[in-house]
Protein backbone atom coordinates (compact mmCIF):
# COMPACT_ATOMS: atom_id res chain seq x y z
CA UNK A 1 0.00 0.00 0.00
CA UNK A 2 1.62 3.18 -1.16
CA UNK A 3 -0.38 5.60 1.02
CA UNK A 4 1.40 4.55 4.17
CA UNK A 5 4.73 5.29 2.55
CA UNK A 6 4.07 9.04 2.44
CA UNK A 7 5.22 11.35 5.22
CA UNK A 8 4.03 14.84 6.19
CA UNK A 9 1.57 15.20 3.32
CA UNK A 10 -1.81 16.82 3.78
CA UNK A 11 -4.48 14.13 4.10
CA UNK A 12 -5.99 14.69 0.65
CA UNK A 13 -2.70 14.67 -1.27
CA UNK A 14 -2.05 10.90 -1.58
CA UNK A 15 -5.49 10.41 -3.08
CA UNK A 16 -4.94 13.27 -5.55
CA UNK A 17 -1.58 11.77 -6.48
CA UNK A 18 -3.16 8.40 -7.08
CA UNK A 19 -5.88 9.92 -9.21
CA UNK A 20 -3.35 12.07 -11.06
CA UNK A 21 -5.44 15.17 -10.32
CA UNK A 22 -3.11 17.04 -7.96
CA UNK A 23 -2.85 20.05 -10.26
CA UNK A 24 -6.50 20.04 -11.27
CA UNK A 25 -8.19 19.49 -7.92
CA UNK A 26 -5.61 20.25 -5.26
CA UNK A 27 -5.45 23.56 -3.47
CA UNK A 28 -2.74 25.67 -5.14
CA UNK A 29 -0.99 28.95 -4.59
CA UNK A 30 1.99 30.86 -5.98
CA UNK A 31 4.61 30.64 -3.26
CA UNK A 32 5.43 34.34 -3.80
CA UNK A 33 2.11 35.13 -2.13
CA UNK A 34 2.81 32.67 0.71
CA UNK A 35 6.02 34.62 1.21
CA UNK A 36 4.27 37.99 1.18
CA UNK A 37 1.79 36.78 3.81
CA UNK A 38 4.49 35.39 6.08
CA UNK A 39 6.38 38.67 5.84
CA UNK A 40 3.42 40.32 7.58
CA UNK A 41 3.86 37.86 10.45
CA UNK A 42 7.60 38.44 10.52
CA UNK A 43 7.14 42.19 10.48
CA UNK A 44 5.14 41.94 13.70
CA UNK A 45 7.74 39.68 15.31
CA UNK A 46 10.88 41.64 14.43
CA UNK A 47 10.96 45.39 14.15
CA UNK A 48 14.34 45.41 12.39
CA UNK A 49 12.95 43.57 9.36
CA UNK A 50 12.57 45.87 6.35
CA UNK A 51 11.11 45.24 2.91
CA UNK A 52 12.85 46.44 -0.26
CA UNK A 53 10.68 46.39 -3.37
CA UNK A 54 11.73 47.13 -6.94
CA UNK A 55 8.50 48.00 -8.74
CA UNK A 56 7.10 44.48 -8.72
CA UNK A 57 5.49 44.68 -5.29
CA UNK A 58 2.14 43.81 -6.85
CA UNK A 59 3.62 40.84 -8.68
CA UNK A 60 5.24 39.70 -5.42
CA UNK A 61 2.31 40.53 -3.15
CA UNK A 62 4.74 42.44 -0.94
CA UNK A 63 2.96 45.78 -1.28
CA UNK A 64 1.00 44.51 1.71
CA UNK A 65 4.09 44.88 3.90
CA UNK A 66 4.17 48.56 2.96
CA UNK A 67 0.52 48.94 3.88
CA UNK A 68 1.08 47.34 7.28
CA UNK A 69 4.51 48.80 8.05
CA UNK A 70 4.82 51.93 5.90
CA UNK A 71 7.96 53.16 7.64
CA UNK A 72 9.75 49.86 6.95
CA UNK A 73 9.01 49.39 3.25
CA UNK A 74 11.01 51.03 0.47
CA UNK A 75 10.12 50.75 -3.19
CA UNK A 76 13.28 51.83 -4.97
CA UNK A 77 11.79 51.54 -8.44
CA UNK A 78 13.02 49.61 -11.45
CA UNK A 79 16.58 49.60 -10.16
CA UNK A 80 17.65 46.20 -8.89
CA UNK A 81 21.36 46.95 -8.62
CA UNK A 82 20.79 49.93 -6.38
CA UNK A 83 18.25 47.98 -4.34
CA UNK A 84 20.56 45.06 -3.59
CA UNK A 85 23.61 47.15 -2.76
CA UNK A 86 21.40 49.34 -0.55
CA UNK A 87 20.23 46.21 1.23
CA UNK A 88 23.84 45.35 2.01
CA UNK A 89 24.29 48.78 3.55
CA UNK A 90 21.12 48.42 5.60
CA UNK A 91 22.24 45.01 6.86
CA UNK A 92 25.59 46.37 7.95
CA UNK A 93 23.73 49.11 9.80
CA UNK A 94 21.69 46.65 11.85
CA UNK A 95 18.57 45.88 9.80
CA UNK A 96 17.38 42.64 8.23
CA UNK A 97 16.39 43.62 4.70
CA UNK A 98 14.29 41.34 2.52
CA UNK A 99 14.72 42.19 -1.18
CA UNK A 100 11.68 41.16 -3.20
CA UNK A 101 11.71 40.90 -6.97
CA UNK A 102 11.79 38.35 -9.78
CA UNK A 103 14.62 35.83 -9.93
CA UNK A 104 15.94 37.08 -13.27
CA UNK A 105 16.24 40.67 -12.14
CA UNK A 106 17.85 40.03 -8.75
CA UNK A 107 20.17 37.15 -9.58
CA UNK A 108 21.31 38.40 -12.98
CA UNK A 109 21.03 42.20 -13.06
CA UNK A 110 22.02 42.31 -9.42
CA UNK A 111 24.57 39.49 -9.41
CA UNK A 112 27.69 41.60 -8.92
CA UNK A 113 26.02 43.34 -6.01
CA UNK A 114 24.99 40.00 -4.52
CA UNK A 115 28.51 38.69 -4.86
CA UNK A 116 30.63 41.62 -3.74
CA UNK A 117 28.37 43.71 -1.51
CA UNK A 118 26.25 40.94 0.02
CA UNK A 119 28.10 37.61 0.08
CA UNK A 120 31.70 38.77 0.26
CA UNK A 121 30.83 41.06 3.19
CA UNK A 122 28.62 38.46 4.95
CA UNK A 123 25.75 40.93 4.87
CA UNK A 124 22.60 39.72 6.59
CA UNK A 125 20.52 40.26 3.46
CA UNK A 126 17.61 38.03 2.44
CA UNK A 127 16.79 37.91 -1.25
CA UNK A 128 13.37 36.45 -1.98
CA UNK A 129 12.51 35.94 -5.61
CA UNK A 130 9.49 34.77 -7.53
CA UNK A 131 9.39 33.76 -11.21
CA UNK A 132 12.07 31.08 -10.74
CA UNK A 133 12.53 28.35 -13.32
CA UNK A 134 9.92 28.23 -16.05
CA UNK A 135 7.17 29.15 -13.59
CA UNK A 136 6.48 32.54 -15.27
CA UNK A 137 5.42 30.31 -18.12
CA UNK A 138 3.54 32.51 -20.60
CA UNK A 139 5.85 35.47 -19.97
CA UNK A 140 8.51 33.62 -21.93
CA UNK A 141 12.25 33.16 -21.76
CA UNK A 142 13.18 36.72 -20.76
CA UNK A 143 11.30 36.26 -17.50
CA UNK A 144 12.04 32.61 -16.72
CA UNK A 145 14.66 32.48 -13.96
CA UNK A 146 16.02 29.12 -15.00
CA UNK A 147 19.50 29.66 -13.54
CA UNK A 148 18.84 31.33 -10.19
CA UNK A 149 19.74 28.21 -8.19
CA UNK A 150 22.96 27.78 -10.14
CA UNK A 151 24.05 31.35 -9.66
CA UNK A 152 23.12 31.62 -6.00
CA UNK A 153 24.77 28.29 -5.24
CA UNK A 154 27.98 29.67 -6.77
CA UNK A 155 28.11 32.51 -4.22
CA UNK A 156 30.28 31.61 -1.22
CA UNK A 157 28.33 32.01 2.01
CA UNK A 158 24.90 32.17 0.37
CA UNK A 159 22.24 29.88 1.81
CA UNK A 160 19.88 28.77 -0.96
CA UNK A 161 16.34 27.56 -0.27
CA UNK A 162 13.79 26.45 -2.87
CA UNK A 163 10.59 25.55 -1.02
CA UNK A 164 7.94 23.38 -2.63
CA UNK A 165 4.70 24.80 -1.27
CA UNK A 166 2.88 27.33 0.89
CA UNK A 167 3.80 25.78 4.25
CA UNK A 168 7.49 25.32 3.54
CA UNK A 169 7.75 28.80 2.04
CA UNK A 170 6.39 30.28 5.25
CA UNK A 171 8.81 28.17 7.31
CA UNK A 172 11.67 29.24 5.03
CA UNK A 173 10.88 32.90 5.66
CA UNK A 174 11.02 32.39 9.41
CA UNK A 175 14.19 30.34 9.18
CA UNK A 176 15.84 32.91 6.91
CA UNK A 177 15.18 35.66 9.43
CA UNK A 178 16.80 33.61 12.20
CA UNK A 179 19.78 32.64 10.05
CA UNK A 180 22.82 34.92 10.26
CA UNK A 181 24.02 35.84 6.77
CA UNK A 182 22.76 35.97 3.23
CA UNK A 183 19.81 33.79 2.26
CA UNK A 184 18.20 33.35 -1.13
CA UNK A 185 14.63 32.01 -1.38
CA UNK A 186 13.50 30.79 -4.80
CA UNK A 187 9.76 30.90 -5.47
CA UNK A 188 7.16 30.33 -8.14
CA UNK A 189 4.92 32.54 -10.22
CA UNK A 190 2.80 29.56 -11.22
CA UNK A 191 0.53 28.34 -8.43
CA UNK A 192 1.84 25.07 -6.96
CA UNK A 193 -0.11 22.50 -4.93
CA UNK A 194 -0.30 22.61 -1.15
CA UNK A 195 1.60 19.47 -0.14
CA UNK A 196 2.44 19.43 3.55
CA UNK A 197 0.73 19.46 6.90
CA UNK A 198 2.02 21.13 10.05
CA UNK A 199 4.12 18.12 11.05
CA UNK A 200 6.67 18.84 8.30
CA UNK A 201 10.05 19.20 10.05
CA UNK A 202 11.54 22.23 8.30
CA UNK A 203 15.12 23.19 9.09
CA UNK A 204 17.66 24.87 6.85
CA UNK A 205 20.07 22.26 5.51
CA UNK A 206 17.83 19.29 6.36
CA UNK A 207 16.37 17.43 3.41
CA UNK A 208 13.11 15.68 4.19
CA UNK A 209 12.08 12.22 3.05
CA UNK A 210 8.42 12.59 2.08
CA UNK A 211 7.98 9.13 0.62
CA UNK A 212 9.67 5.94 1.76
CA UNK A 213 11.03 3.57 -0.86
CA UNK A 214 13.90 1.19 -1.52
CA UNK A 215 14.27 0.83 -5.28
CA UNK A 216 15.52 4.32 -6.14
CA UNK A 217 15.41 7.89 -4.80
CA UNK A 218 14.13 11.02 -6.46
CA UNK A 219 15.66 14.17 -5.01
CA UNK A 220 13.74 17.28 -5.99
CA UNK A 221 13.22 20.90 -5.04
CA UNK A 222 10.73 23.77 -5.46
CA UNK A 223 8.03 23.10 -8.04
CA UNK A 224 9.57 19.78 -9.05
CA UNK A 225 8.71 18.16 -5.72
CA UNK A 226 5.11 17.82 -6.92
CA UNK A 227 6.33 16.22 -10.15
CA UNK A 228 8.57 13.89 -8.15
CA UNK A 229 5.60 12.74 -6.06
CA UNK A 230 3.53 12.15 -9.19
CA UNK A 231 6.44 10.20 -10.67
CA UNK A 232 6.82 8.05 -7.56
CA UNK A 233 3.11 7.28 -7.62
CA UNK A 234 3.20 6.08 -11.22
CA UNK A 235 6.44 4.17 -10.63
CA UNK A 236 4.63 2.38 -7.81
CA UNK A 237 2.03 1.24 -10.33
CA UNK A 238 4.90 -0.44 -12.18
CA UNK A 239 6.10 -2.12 -9.02
CA UNK A 240 8.94 0.30 -8.30
CA UNK A 241 9.09 1.55 -4.74
CA UNK A 242 10.66 4.99 -4.96
CA UNK A 243 11.85 7.24 -2.16
CA UNK A 244 11.23 10.96 -2.58
CA UNK A 245 13.34 13.58 -0.87
CA UNK A 246 12.34 17.24 -0.74
CA UNK A 247 15.78 18.85 -0.80
CA UNK A 248 14.46 22.35 -0.13
CA UNK A 249 17.89 23.63 0.89
CA UNK A 250 20.29 23.47 -2.03
CA UNK A 251 23.07 24.97 0.06
CA UNK A 252 24.18 23.86 2.57
CA UNK A 253 23.36 20.49 1.04
CA UNK A 254 22.14 17.70 3.33
CA UNK A 255 24.96 15.36 2.37
CA UNK A 256 24.04 12.71 4.89
CA UNK A 257 20.47 12.29 3.69
CA UNK A 258 21.70 11.96 0.12
CA UNK A 259 24.46 9.50 0.91
CA UNK A 260 22.09 7.38 2.98
CA UNK A 261 19.54 7.37 0.15
CA UNK A 262 22.21 6.39 -2.35
CA UNK A 263 23.38 3.58 -0.11
CA UNK A 264 19.92 2.29 0.77
CA UNK A 265 18.22 2.60 -2.61
CA UNK A 266 21.21 2.27 -4.94
CA UNK A 267 19.96 4.65 -7.63
CA UNK A 268 19.34 8.41 -7.75
CA UNK A 269 17.31 10.74 -9.96
CA UNK A 270 17.44 14.49 -9.34
CA UNK A 271 14.63 16.75 -10.53
CA UNK A 272 14.85 20.53 -10.77
CA UNK A 273 13.15 23.26 -12.77
CA UNK A 274 16.55 24.86 -13.37
CA UNK A 275 19.37 24.45 -15.84
CA UNK A 276 21.33 21.23 -15.40
CA UNK A 277 24.56 23.17 -15.03
CA UNK A 278 25.39 23.82 -11.41
CA UNK A 279 22.06 23.19 -9.73
CA UNK A 280 20.68 20.39 -7.57
CA UNK A 281 21.71 17.62 -9.95
CA UNK A 282 25.24 18.97 -10.09
CA UNK A 283 25.44 19.26 -6.32
CA UNK A 284 24.24 15.70 -5.78
CA UNK A 285 26.50 14.31 -8.52
CA UNK A 286 29.52 16.10 -7.09
CA UNK A 287 28.81 14.59 -3.69
CA UNK A 288 28.20 11.06 -4.94
CA UNK A 289 31.15 10.90 -7.30
CA UNK A 290 33.49 11.43 -4.36
CA UNK A 291 31.66 9.52 -1.67
CA UNK A 292 29.67 6.69 -3.19
CA UNK A 293 28.69 6.68 -6.87
CA UNK A 294 25.46 4.94 -7.82
CA UNK A 295 23.54 4.98 -11.11
CA UNK A 296 22.20 8.52 -11.45
CA UNK A 297 20.22 10.69 -13.85
CA UNK A 298 19.53 14.41 -13.70
CA UNK A 299 16.24 15.96 -14.81
CA UNK A 300 16.47 19.67 -15.58
CA UNK A 301 16.65 22.21 -18.38
CA UNK A 302 19.35 21.15 -20.79
CA UNK A 303 21.25 23.91 -22.60
CA UNK A 304 18.31 25.85 -23.93
CA UNK A 305 16.08 28.80 -23.30
CA UNK A 306 12.43 27.86 -23.01
CA UNK A 307 9.51 29.83 -24.46
CA UNK A 308 6.02 31.08 -23.73
CA UNK A 309 3.30 28.55 -23.00
CA UNK A 310 1.20 26.98 -20.25
CA UNK A 311 3.32 25.76 -17.33
CA UNK A 312 2.39 22.08 -17.54
CA UNK A 313 2.97 22.08 -21.30
CA UNK A 314 6.41 23.58 -20.78
CA UNK A 315 7.28 20.93 -18.18
CA UNK A 316 6.41 18.34 -20.79
CA UNK A 317 8.25 20.07 -23.63
CA UNK A 318 11.48 20.63 -21.74
CA UNK A 319 11.67 17.17 -20.23
CA UNK A 320 10.66 18.06 -16.68
CA UNK A 321 7.32 16.32 -16.27
CA UNK A 322 6.56 13.38 -13.99
CA UNK A 323 6.61 11.16 -17.06
CA UNK A 324 10.21 12.11 -17.79
CA UNK A 325 11.16 11.50 -14.19
CA UNK A 326 9.61 8.02 -14.23
CA UNK A 327 11.54 7.19 -17.38
CA UNK A 328 14.74 8.27 -15.65
CA UNK A 329 13.85 6.11 -12.64
CA UNK A 330 13.42 3.08 -14.89
CA UNK A 331 16.82 3.76 -16.45
CA UNK A 332 18.74 4.06 -13.19
CA UNK A 333 17.05 1.02 -11.72
CA UNK A 334 17.97 -0.98 -14.83
CA UNK A 335 21.59 0.11 -14.44
CA UNK A 336 21.80 -0.92 -10.80
CA UNK A 337 23.27 -4.33 -11.55
CA UNK A 338 25.94 -2.94 -13.93
CA UNK A 339 28.35 -1.70 -11.32
Amino acid at each position, binding site marked *: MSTSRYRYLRPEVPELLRAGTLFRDGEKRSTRFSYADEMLVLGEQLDNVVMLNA*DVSKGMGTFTFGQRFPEREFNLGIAEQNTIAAAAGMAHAGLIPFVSTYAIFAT*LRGLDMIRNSVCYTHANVKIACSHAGITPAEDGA*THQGQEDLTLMRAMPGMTVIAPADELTTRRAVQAAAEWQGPVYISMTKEPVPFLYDESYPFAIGRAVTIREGDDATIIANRDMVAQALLAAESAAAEGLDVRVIDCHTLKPLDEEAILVAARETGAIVTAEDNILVGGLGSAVAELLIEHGPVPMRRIGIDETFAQSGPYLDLLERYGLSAGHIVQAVREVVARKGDA
Partner: protein
Amino acid sequence: MHTSPPVAADIRELETIAAQIRCDLVRMIHIARMGHPGGSLSAADLVTALYFQVMRIDPARPDWPERDRFILSKGHACPVWYAALIRRGYLGRECLDTLRCLDSLLQGHPDMVKTPGVEMTAGSLGHGLSAGLGMALAARVRGLNYRVWVMIGDGETQEGSIWEAAMAAPNLRLDNLTVILDRNRIQNDDLIDNIMPIEPLAAKWKSFGWHVMEIDGHEMAQVVDALEASREAEPQPVIIIANTVKGKGVSFMEDNPFWHGNAPDADQTAQALQEICAAAGLEVADVD
Protein backbone atom coordinates in the same frame (compact mmCIF):
# COMPACT_ATOMS: atom_id res chain seq x y z
CA MET B 1 18.44 55.43 -51.98
CA HIS B 2 16.26 52.47 -51.07
CA THR B 3 13.25 53.71 -49.24
CA SER B 4 9.83 52.24 -49.11
CA PRO B 5 7.16 54.77 -50.03
CA PRO B 6 5.09 56.00 -47.12
CA VAL B 7 2.07 53.75 -46.99
CA ALA B 8 -0.24 56.21 -45.28
CA ALA B 9 -1.17 59.25 -47.30
CA ASP B 10 -2.21 61.55 -44.52
CA ILE B 11 -2.65 62.10 -40.84
CA ARG B 12 -6.28 61.00 -40.85
CA GLU B 13 -5.31 57.69 -42.35
CA LEU B 14 -2.60 57.19 -39.76
CA GLU B 15 -5.12 57.83 -37.02
CA THR B 16 -7.35 55.16 -38.47
CA ILE B 17 -4.51 52.67 -38.56
CA ALA B 18 -3.65 53.51 -34.95
CA ALA B 19 -7.24 52.74 -33.96
CA GLN B 20 -7.09 49.42 -35.78
CA ILE B 21 -3.83 48.58 -34.04
CA ARG B 22 -5.38 49.45 -30.68
CA CYS B 23 -8.29 47.11 -31.40
CA ASP B 24 -5.95 44.32 -32.46
CA LEU B 25 -3.78 44.55 -29.38
CA VAL B 26 -6.73 44.64 -26.99
CA ARG B 27 -8.16 41.56 -28.69
CA MET B 28 -4.81 39.82 -28.63
CA ILE B 29 -4.38 40.36 -24.89
CA HIS B 30 -7.95 39.30 -24.22
CA ILE B 31 -7.47 36.04 -26.12
CA ALA B 32 -4.16 35.35 -24.36
CA ARG B 33 -5.85 36.21 -21.03
CA MET B 34 -2.57 37.92 -20.12
CA GLY B 35 -0.39 40.79 -21.22
CA HIS B 36 0.21 44.49 -20.79
CA PRO B 37 -2.49 46.68 -22.35
CA GLY B 38 -1.70 50.01 -20.65
CA GLY B 39 1.76 50.61 -22.06
CA SER B 40 0.75 49.11 -25.41
CA LEU B 41 -2.09 51.58 -25.84
CA SER B 42 0.01 54.57 -24.78
CA ALA B 43 2.54 53.71 -27.48
CA ALA B 44 0.09 52.96 -30.29
CA ASP B 45 0.19 56.34 -32.07
CA LEU B 46 3.98 56.51 -31.91
CA VAL B 47 4.46 52.98 -33.23
CA THR B 48 1.90 53.59 -35.99
CA ALA B 49 3.70 56.72 -37.17
CA LEU B 50 7.01 54.86 -37.25
CA TYR B 51 5.79 51.82 -39.16
CA PHE B 52 3.34 53.51 -41.53
CA GLN B 53 5.05 56.81 -42.28
CA VAL B 54 8.49 57.47 -40.92
CA MET B 55 10.71 54.40 -40.98
CA ARG B 56 12.50 53.30 -44.13
CA ILE B 57 11.57 49.64 -44.17
CA ASP B 58 10.43 46.93 -46.52
CA PRO B 59 8.26 44.21 -45.00
CA ALA B 60 9.10 41.95 -47.92
CA ARG B 61 12.77 42.18 -46.95
CA PRO B 62 12.93 42.17 -43.15
CA ASP B 63 16.69 41.61 -43.37
CA TRP B 64 17.44 44.43 -45.86
CA PRO B 65 20.77 45.77 -44.50
CA GLU B 66 19.86 49.44 -44.94
CA ARG B 67 16.50 49.24 -43.20
CA ASP B 68 15.74 51.47 -40.26
CA ARG B 69 15.66 49.58 -36.98
CA PHE B 70 13.02 49.86 -34.27
CA ILE B 71 13.62 48.47 -30.78
CA LEU B 72 10.88 48.28 -28.18
CA SER B 73 13.03 48.38 -25.08
CA LYS B 74 9.91 48.30 -22.89
CA GLY B 75 9.33 44.84 -24.27
CA HIS B 76 6.27 44.02 -22.17
CA ALA B 77 4.31 46.32 -24.51
CA CYS B 78 4.98 43.95 -27.43
CA PRO B 79 1.28 43.54 -28.33
CA VAL B 80 1.45 46.99 -29.94
CA TRP B 81 4.57 45.95 -31.85
CA TYR B 82 3.00 42.67 -32.98
CA ALA B 83 -0.19 44.45 -34.04
CA ALA B 84 1.83 46.91 -36.14
CA LEU B 85 3.92 44.12 -37.68
CA ILE B 86 0.74 42.25 -38.58
CA ARG B 87 -0.92 45.31 -40.14
CA ARG B 88 2.29 46.17 -42.00
CA GLY B 89 2.57 42.68 -43.46
CA TYR B 90 5.49 41.18 -41.56
CA LEU B 91 3.23 38.59 -39.95
CA GLY B 92 0.00 36.89 -40.90
CA ARG B 93 -3.24 37.90 -39.22
CA GLU B 94 -3.74 34.39 -37.87
CA CYS B 95 -0.98 35.22 -35.38
CA LEU B 96 -3.43 37.44 -33.49
CA ASP B 97 -4.90 34.41 -31.73
CA THR B 98 -1.58 32.95 -30.63
CA LEU B 99 0.01 35.47 -28.28
CA ARG B 100 1.84 33.60 -25.49
CA CYS B 101 0.79 30.16 -26.78
CA LEU B 102 3.18 27.22 -27.00
CA ASP B 103 5.21 27.36 -30.25
CA SER B 104 3.78 30.75 -31.22
CA LEU B 105 5.73 33.35 -33.18
CA LEU B 106 4.40 35.83 -30.63
CA GLN B 107 6.26 35.31 -27.38
CA GLY B 108 5.19 36.96 -24.14
CA HIS B 109 8.11 39.34 -24.64
CA PRO B 110 9.73 40.19 -28.01
CA ASP B 111 12.04 37.51 -29.40
CA MET B 112 14.10 38.48 -32.46
CA VAL B 113 15.00 34.85 -33.15
CA LYS B 114 11.36 33.81 -33.50
CA THR B 115 9.52 36.83 -34.87
CA PRO B 116 10.12 38.46 -38.27
CA GLY B 117 10.40 42.23 -37.91
CA VAL B 118 11.45 42.13 -34.27
CA GLU B 119 14.90 43.71 -34.34
CA MET B 120 15.89 43.06 -30.76
CA THR B 121 14.80 40.75 -27.98
CA ALA B 122 13.52 42.64 -24.94
CA GLY B 123 11.67 42.12 -21.68
CA SER B 124 14.33 42.78 -19.10
CA LEU B 125 14.13 46.56 -18.90
CA GLY B 126 17.16 48.74 -19.58
CA HIS B 127 18.77 46.83 -22.46
CA GLY B 128 17.20 48.26 -25.59
CA LEU B 129 18.80 51.68 -25.59
CA SER B 130 22.27 50.14 -25.35
CA ALA B 131 21.46 47.68 -28.13
CA GLY B 132 20.17 50.55 -30.26
CA LEU B 133 23.34 52.46 -29.57
CA GLY B 134 25.29 49.45 -30.79
CA MET B 135 23.25 49.21 -33.98
CA ALA B 136 23.69 52.91 -34.62
CA LEU B 137 27.45 52.58 -34.20
CA ALA B 138 27.47 49.56 -36.51
CA ALA B 139 25.89 51.68 -39.24
CA ARG B 140 28.79 54.08 -38.97
CA VAL B 141 31.41 51.35 -39.02
CA ARG B 142 29.80 49.59 -41.98
CA GLY B 143 28.98 52.78 -43.87
CA LEU B 144 25.26 52.05 -43.92
CA ASN B 145 22.64 54.72 -43.99
CA TYR B 146 19.95 53.63 -41.59
CA ARG B 147 18.44 55.17 -38.48
CA VAL B 148 17.76 53.45 -35.17
CA TRP B 149 14.57 54.20 -33.24
CA VAL B 150 14.37 53.02 -29.65
CA MET B 151 11.28 53.29 -27.49
CA ILE B 152 11.83 53.28 -23.74
CA GLY B 153 9.36 53.50 -20.86
CA ASP B 154 9.44 56.33 -18.37
CA GLY B 155 9.58 53.83 -15.51
CA GLU B 156 12.36 52.10 -17.39
CA THR B 157 14.55 55.19 -17.03
CA GLN B 158 14.96 54.27 -13.37
CA GLU B 159 17.39 51.55 -14.51
CA GLY B 160 21.03 52.58 -14.23
CA SER B 161 21.91 51.10 -17.61
CA ILE B 162 19.67 53.67 -19.31
CA TRP B 163 21.95 56.41 -18.02
CA GLU B 164 25.08 54.56 -19.06
CA ALA B 165 23.74 54.59 -22.61
CA ALA B 166 22.50 58.16 -22.21
CA MET B 167 26.06 59.19 -21.39
CA ALA B 168 27.62 57.22 -24.22
CA ALA B 169 25.45 58.13 -27.21
CA PRO B 170 26.23 61.88 -27.29
CA ASN B 171 29.90 61.16 -26.61
CA LEU B 172 29.88 58.88 -29.64
CA ARG B 173 28.13 61.64 -31.63
CA LEU B 174 25.43 59.23 -32.73
CA ASP B 175 23.29 61.32 -35.05
CA ASN B 176 21.42 58.30 -36.39
CA LEU B 177 19.68 57.46 -33.13
CA THR B 178 16.25 58.64 -31.99
CA VAL B 179 14.90 57.64 -28.61
CA ILE B 180 11.19 57.90 -28.01
CA LEU B 181 10.29 58.06 -24.34
CA ASP B 182 6.72 56.95 -23.71
CA ARG B 183 5.94 59.37 -20.90
CA ASN B 184 2.74 57.81 -19.60
CA ARG B 185 3.52 58.58 -15.94
CA ILE B 186 2.75 55.12 -14.61
CA GLN B 187 5.06 52.19 -13.89
CA ASN B 188 4.15 48.71 -12.63
CA ASP B 189 3.26 49.37 -9.02
CA ASP B 190 1.84 52.87 -9.16
CA LEU B 191 2.25 56.39 -10.54
CA ILE B 192 5.93 57.10 -11.09
CA ASP B 193 5.63 60.13 -8.83
CA ASN B 194 4.56 57.82 -5.99
CA ILE B 195 7.46 55.39 -6.50
CA MET B 196 10.59 57.12 -7.80
CA PRO B 197 10.10 60.47 -9.54
CA ILE B 198 12.20 61.06 -12.67
CA GLU B 199 11.70 64.76 -13.38
CA PRO B 200 13.10 67.04 -14.64
CA LEU B 201 13.39 64.69 -17.58
CA ALA B 202 14.13 67.13 -20.38
CA ALA B 203 16.81 68.85 -18.33
CA LYS B 204 18.42 65.53 -17.43
CA TRP B 205 18.72 64.37 -21.03
CA LYS B 206 19.81 67.82 -22.22
CA SER B 207 22.57 67.86 -19.64
CA PHE B 208 23.75 64.49 -20.92
CA GLY B 209 24.13 66.03 -24.39
CA TRP B 210 20.93 65.01 -26.14
CA HIS B 211 18.76 67.06 -28.45
CA VAL B 212 15.45 67.00 -26.59
CA MET B 213 12.00 67.44 -28.12
CA GLU B 214 8.74 67.24 -26.24
CA ILE B 215 5.42 66.40 -27.85
CA ASP B 216 1.91 65.15 -27.27
CA GLY B 217 2.32 61.49 -28.14
CA HIS B 218 -1.28 61.16 -29.24
CA GLU B 219 -1.35 64.10 -31.70
CA MET B 220 -0.48 62.31 -34.90
CA ALA B 221 0.70 65.39 -36.78
CA GLN B 222 3.03 66.34 -33.96
CA VAL B 223 4.27 62.78 -33.70
CA VAL B 224 5.12 62.52 -37.40
CA ASP B 225 6.73 65.97 -37.47
CA ALA B 226 8.92 65.27 -34.47
CA LEU B 227 10.02 61.86 -35.71
CA GLU B 228 10.91 63.30 -39.13
CA ALA B 229 12.63 66.31 -37.61
CA SER B 230 14.78 64.04 -35.45
CA ARG B 231 16.62 62.97 -38.62
CA GLU B 232 18.05 66.48 -38.95
CA ALA B 233 19.48 67.00 -35.48
CA GLU B 234 23.15 66.36 -36.31
CA PRO B 235 25.49 65.70 -34.65
CA GLN B 236 23.48 64.76 -31.59
CA PRO B 237 21.29 61.83 -30.74
CA VAL B 238 17.69 62.86 -30.21
CA ILE B 239 15.19 62.03 -27.53
CA ILE B 240 11.52 62.74 -28.07
CA ILE B 241 9.66 62.92 -24.80
CA ALA B 242 6.18 61.88 -25.86
CA ASN B 243 3.57 62.78 -23.29
CA THR B 244 1.02 60.00 -23.39
CA VAL B 245 -1.79 58.45 -21.41
CA LYS B 246 -1.39 54.89 -20.19
CA GLY B 247 -4.32 52.89 -21.55
CA LYS B 248 -5.10 55.62 -24.11
CA GLY B 249 -8.37 55.14 -25.93
CA VAL B 250 -10.08 52.88 -23.40
CA SER B 251 -11.79 54.98 -20.73
CA PHE B 252 -11.57 52.50 -17.88
CA MET B 253 -7.92 51.76 -18.56
CA GLU B 254 -6.72 55.34 -18.89
CA ASP B 255 -4.36 56.47 -16.13
CA ASN B 256 -5.12 53.36 -14.08
CA PRO B 257 -2.07 51.36 -12.91
CA PHE B 258 -4.22 48.22 -12.69
CA TRP B 259 -4.15 47.97 -16.48
CA HIS B 260 -0.38 47.85 -16.65
CA GLY B 261 -0.47 44.06 -16.68
CA ASN B 262 -4.01 42.73 -16.64
CA ALA B 263 -6.12 41.40 -19.49
CA PRO B 264 -9.66 42.61 -20.18
CA ASP B 265 -12.49 40.09 -19.99
CA ALA B 266 -15.04 39.66 -22.78
CA ASP B 267 -17.31 42.52 -21.72
CA GLN B 268 -14.41 44.86 -21.10
CA THR B 269 -12.96 43.95 -24.48
CA ALA B 270 -16.24 44.69 -26.22
CA GLN B 271 -16.47 48.05 -24.51
CA ALA B 272 -12.83 48.82 -25.35
CA LEU B 273 -13.31 48.07 -29.04
CA GLN B 274 -16.49 50.11 -29.05
CA GLU B 275 -14.76 53.14 -27.58
CA ILE B 276 -11.69 52.93 -29.78
CA CYS B 277 -13.78 52.62 -32.92
CA ALA B 278 -16.24 55.33 -31.98
CA ALA B 279 -13.41 57.80 -31.43
CA ALA B 280 -11.96 56.98 -34.85
CA GLY B 281 -15.28 56.93 -36.69
CA LEU B 282 -15.02 53.20 -37.39
CA GLU B 283 -17.41 50.31 -37.01
CA VAL B 284 -16.21 47.49 -34.76
CA ALA B 285 -17.25 45.00 -37.42
CA ASP B 286 -14.89 46.68 -39.90
CA VAL B 287 -11.86 46.40 -37.67
CA ASP B 288 -11.02 42.80 -38.27
